[in-house]
């Protein structure tokens, strides 16, 4: 009985996943690792050689432990599909990811809440990237059209010597609801951390993004890049923090927010340098669409509405 309901729910989750434009056949491919969960139910899971995935349902949510073994280069991305398919619900995921020395993995997370009217999704991640290992984490969300989702992803990441960590958070289709991202990354010697977030807020969506990179290792590199577009009465507050605490550390915080209608945007770049040979820079631009960009596109024949759409799509690309 439970098996049949799991299959039905998995199909429903994959259908919702497919409706966001993604290819749901990847979940049938034996060469591709995945973990799919709806609410607090694990629906499907597959590992591949060199990747250990241990996931379980607990009283308070889902716990997953993921390890990429030393020297393993995963040729296919690992897909994580999380969602709540009902109008109301809660999903709490605690995930630990460890990439061992000189390994490589690309995780693609799909978070779908297509019918959400009152849904809460909490993600708590602890990520450890070993020496000379590289992790890419692409996260695409679809929260439906009602704005009834509250999403709170939190991650604490340690990037080891010469390690590399790249994230890309995308929520550019449908409503946002309430979003509060809280990521902290610490980069060791010669490590690289790049955090990118792109969000399009509508109606009364409320977006808070707090991303912090601590450059504690010599010659470490950090980039926080945030692109936000807001319309109607949406609000966004973006806090990008970079600390340069070691010789040769280089960091940059780059935030662009475009506002339309009665939307309100706020950017708080914080740079903190404690070593005289570290350097951290920041740039933040908030405003309506640039007049010169508009006129250039209009001189190519685009209407003002088409020009604004293209500029907004561009910064969220």
């Amino acid at each position, binding site marked *: 009985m439970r098996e049949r309901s799991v299959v039905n729910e998995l199909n429903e989750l994959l259908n919702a996943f497919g409706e966001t434009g993604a290819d749901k056949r990847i979940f049938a491919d034996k060469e591709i690792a995945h973990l799919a969960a709806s609410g607090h139910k694990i629906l499907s899971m597959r590992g591949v050689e060199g990747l250990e995935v241990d996931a379980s349902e607990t009283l308070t949510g889902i716990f997953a432990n993921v390890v990429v073994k030393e020297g393993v280069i995963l040729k296919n991305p690992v897909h994580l599909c999380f969602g709540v398919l009902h109008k109301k619900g809660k999903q709490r995921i605690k995930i630990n990811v460890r990439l061992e020395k000189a390994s490589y993995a690309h995780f693609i997370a799909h978070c779908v809440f297509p019918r959400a009217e009152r849904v809460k999704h909490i993600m708590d991640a602890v990520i450890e990237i070993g020496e000379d290992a590289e992790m890419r984490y692409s996260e695409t969300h679809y929260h439906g059209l009602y704005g009834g989702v509250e999403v709170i992803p939190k991650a604490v990441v340690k990037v080891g010597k010469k390690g590399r960590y790249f994230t890309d958070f995308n929520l550019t289709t449908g409503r946002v609801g309430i979003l509060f991202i809280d990521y902290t990354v610490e980069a060791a010697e010669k490590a690289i951390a790049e955090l990118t977030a792109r969000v399009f807020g509508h109606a009364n969506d409320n977006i808070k993004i707090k991303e912090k990179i601590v450059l504690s290792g010599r010659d470490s590199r950090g980039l926080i890049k945030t692109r936000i577009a807001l319309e109607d009465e949406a609000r966004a507050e973006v806090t990008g923090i970079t600390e340069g605490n070691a010789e040769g550390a280089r960091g940059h915080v780059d935030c662009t927010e475009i506002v339309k209608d009665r939307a309100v945007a706020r950017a708080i770049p914080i740079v903190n340098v404690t070593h005289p040979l570290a350097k951290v820079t920041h740039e933040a631009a908030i405003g309506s669409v640039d*007049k010169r960009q508009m*006129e250039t596109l209009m001189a*190519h*024949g685009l209407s003002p509405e088409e020009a604004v759409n*293209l500029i907004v799509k561009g*910064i*969220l690309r």
Partner: protein
Amino acid sequence: MELLKIKNLFYSVNDRHIIKNLTLSISPHEIHALLGANGSGKTTLAYLIMGCEGYRPTAGEIIFEGKIINALPVHERARLGITMAWQEPVRFEGICVADYLTLKNRFVSSKSLQPSLSPAHYLEMVGLEPSLYLDRMVDKSLSGGERKRIELASILALNPKLAILDEPDSGIDMLSTQDIINVINAFKENGSSVLLITHREEIALIADKASQICHGEIIASGSPKEVSEYYKSRRCLVCEGEVCRE
């Protein structure tokens, strides 16, 4: 019939005339060079023809193909066949060169415009290797010269009836002067007229006609050679040569 006719145009800011009783005509397939010192009103005239925000004539008429266009917004003028390459083109995050060069195909439905060739063709026309540029973004990763060439390619791709080129040679190295001349000639070969704003005599000389502007007035019109000589002679009656110097 003239393609563009500007009659007794005035444009004032705070009661100060920036453009003063300016009259100018451009025929179909004509390259018309506009010479003038910095601050003489060349770019202001370009903005008035294009209809940029804040640039509406105080008096006079801008007539395109017999229609007064004083009140039309930029995109409606563009759809009539007027376009402009700014002196310093803006950057666009997230828009690749291939898409930028095909904006017309995506958004403009004017049947009066000629069909476009491939984006690669237009890049080659401005001296850029397509395989190196088509996938690049039109953003700050491009140098000033590269961005300028891509802007010219995008204007060529529009097949406009009138292209306003505001100093297409600025920011492009001297060795590329012949490239710029080739591009301007390409507009003419494609059937476009060009209003060519430039400081460089060798570029102005390829025009069919030329005019010199000083303090917002056209002070000389004629062959490019004559106007160029006049420009260099500082015999301007408006500023008595004080402004009209090279």
